[in-house]
């Protein structure tokens, strides 16, 4: 069925408003976009790692989640949801449940790239029929913007502060999507918020309804940590795509496919400049740092084009 934005938007929300995430945060629209891909008649068990999303949506005695929800700790959303899925399989086998349930785990980049990587890897390798979604805001936001292995090089964070000697984080961002693709699971995809939410919707639908484990990596900007103007959320996402800093692609049954190729590839400075976390790169004398970032992006983009069988 062709994607129809109006129809999709008319589905009842499964994450209700009134939660306490910041205005302009990328995570809630990402979560809502993903949950819209659930068929209305299907139930879901949603899990979340500790992080901004969890502490802002389920503060006792209120929950913003319309589906059954579980949070246990920071590093184990993969394992926790895999346990719920295992119970479902057993209870179905024993005839205790008729209805269809889908299992979706959310984790921030800290809970996914770092402390929860083992738990995620285990859950995917074991083949549970579940989706793990990383809402990637490129730092530990909940504890006050500390660097993670997802934080891009030269970002100014509270544990990789830019100073008189060091210009922010010293390491490149980990390529987690490729790590997950190397698990050879049925579906892995990378996306962000696009103007009509089509890419996110279609990838979520595949991830949820393809049998077996799936992993989605969704760039979900954080206006507090990235220090951009709150209304600029969608623009920042677009610049991430158009500079090829955050390519949009999927790996379905081992086949890599590019889903978006900018008509004109923009220079990385267009993405970096509106964000306070990169402000120091625009000081005189730091031009070479920006060029270093550009070179890295170019190389990774070419690698990706090759993997996807695109012309370079």
């Amino acid at each position, binding site marked *: 069925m062709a994607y129809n934005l109006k129809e999709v938007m008319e589905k009842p929300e499964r994450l209700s408003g009134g939660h306490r995430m910041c205005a302009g945060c990328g995570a809630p629209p990402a979560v809502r976009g993903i949950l819209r891909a659930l068929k209305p008649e299907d139930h879901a068990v949603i899990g979340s790692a500790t992080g901004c999303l969890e502490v802002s949506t389920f503060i006792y005695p209120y929950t913003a989640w319309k589906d059954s929800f579980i949070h*246990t700790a920071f590093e184990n959303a993969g394992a*926790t949801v895999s346990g719920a899925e295992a119970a*479902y399989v057993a209870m179905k086998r024993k005839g205790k449940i008729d209805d269809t*349930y889908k299992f979706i785990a959310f984790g921030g980049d800290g809970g996914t790239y770092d402390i929860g990587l083992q738990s995620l890897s*285990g859950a995917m390798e074991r083949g549970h029929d579940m989706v793990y979604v990383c809402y990637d805001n490129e730092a530990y936001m909940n504890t006050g913007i500390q660097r993670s292995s997802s934080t891009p090089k030269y970002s100014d964070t509270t544990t990789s502060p830019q100073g008189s000697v060091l210009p922010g984080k010293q390491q490149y961002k980990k390529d987690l999507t490729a790590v997950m693709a190397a698990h050879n699971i049925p579906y892995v995809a990378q996306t962000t918020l696009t103007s009509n939410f089509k890419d996110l919707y279609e990838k979520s639908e595949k991830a949820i309804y393809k049998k077996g484990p799936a992993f989605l990596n969704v760039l979900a900007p954080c206006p507090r940590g990235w220090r951009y103007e709150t209304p600029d959320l969608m623009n920042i996402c677009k610049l991430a795509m158009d500079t090829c800093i955050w390519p949009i692609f999927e790996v379905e049954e081992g086949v890599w496919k590019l889903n978006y190729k900018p008509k004109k590839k923009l220079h990385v400075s267009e993405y970096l400049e509106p964000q306070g976390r990169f402000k120091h790169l625009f000081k005189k004398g730091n031009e070479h740092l920006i060029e270093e970032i550009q070179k890295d992006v170019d190389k990774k983009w070419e690698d990706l084009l090759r993997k996807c069988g695109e012309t370079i």
Partner: protein
Amino acid sequence: MAIRERLSGNEAIAVAMKQINPDVVAAFPITPSTEIPQYFSQFVSNGAVQTEFVPVESEHSAMSACIGAQAAGGRTMTATSANGLALMWEMLYIASSSRLPVTLACVNRALSGPLNIHNDHSDSMGARDSGWIQLYSENNQEAYDNFIQAVRIGEHKDVVLPVMVCQDGFITSHAVENLDLLEDEKVKAFVGEYNPEHYLLNTKEQIAVGPLDLPNYFFEHRRQQAQAMMNAKQVILDVAKEFEKVTGRKYDLFEEYKLSDAEIAIVIINSTAGTAKTVVDELREKGIKAGLLKIRVFRPFPQEEMVAALKHVKALAVMDKAEAFSGVGGPLFADVKAALYGVADGIKVINYIYGLGGRDVKADNIELVYNELQNIVKTGQIGETYRYVGVRE
């Protein structure tokens, strides 16, 4: 008719698991509990159970998966030892505070470091404040019986807490002993169906588990959890009565061995109670009034009952197979002494640390303890209260 079998302690637990036929078992290998998931996965491979076996990549994930599964509405179990239990630490507290009656077979082993695979109680003693009910087992029969009862205790509506069933690594886990098994149908009837009040996979209501719980509610939730632990005592006794009806085997909060008229006694946990009982018998033959109290239920701590059972004793040695590094004694000692304080102050109470890291505990060691107690009674002098037995110094 009961089934006579010869099984190791690990196999006895695995057989109990098979007979219970839980929804989910999630486990990770560690000596000396490894055989439990090994036996169990064979039952899965042979179609002897309908359980979903989750071969997780760590014990942290084992407990996380158990929590997810139990919250989903499944009856869930695991097994571990030492470092495995330590890796679960964070999740042990989350299981109990989320009020999820997971059942865990803890095959006691010394907690690293240095690395040591042999028995002591430092693993489960370290978890004593995690909100889990703890049952201890002297032998394979008790391990089997406790494990079946644990399911009923944890799931009881007045309790709803996870239960840890402990036995001594290698000493009972790997020793083959005669035991009586229940028939499958009897186990099935005894544990019944798991029907939680609220669960994730309930199509009639959605629930949310594991909130951010701020100061306006957290304290009340802790209070309720503490109440559940207090309630567990009566439930443990009731379940034991029912179990006795089915099996003829009697269980209590602790076992008293020649204690009612004893002048000197020890308090002990798990397999060493067997050795100590033979020492008591020998002493009794010599006319020495020795007795023994063997803990079965350590959490909740059976304070009043223990005081009633011990109050006539003149000198008492509390035996700890774990260091607590408090500088003044082991964990069991602290609890027993606190229980007696102000209500049985006449008793002279000393502590012995014994058998750490699998050091053999011989009848001689236990005899020495009773001799010391006799001396204390004779001289009226208690001396040092924090002592070691069987160590080279």
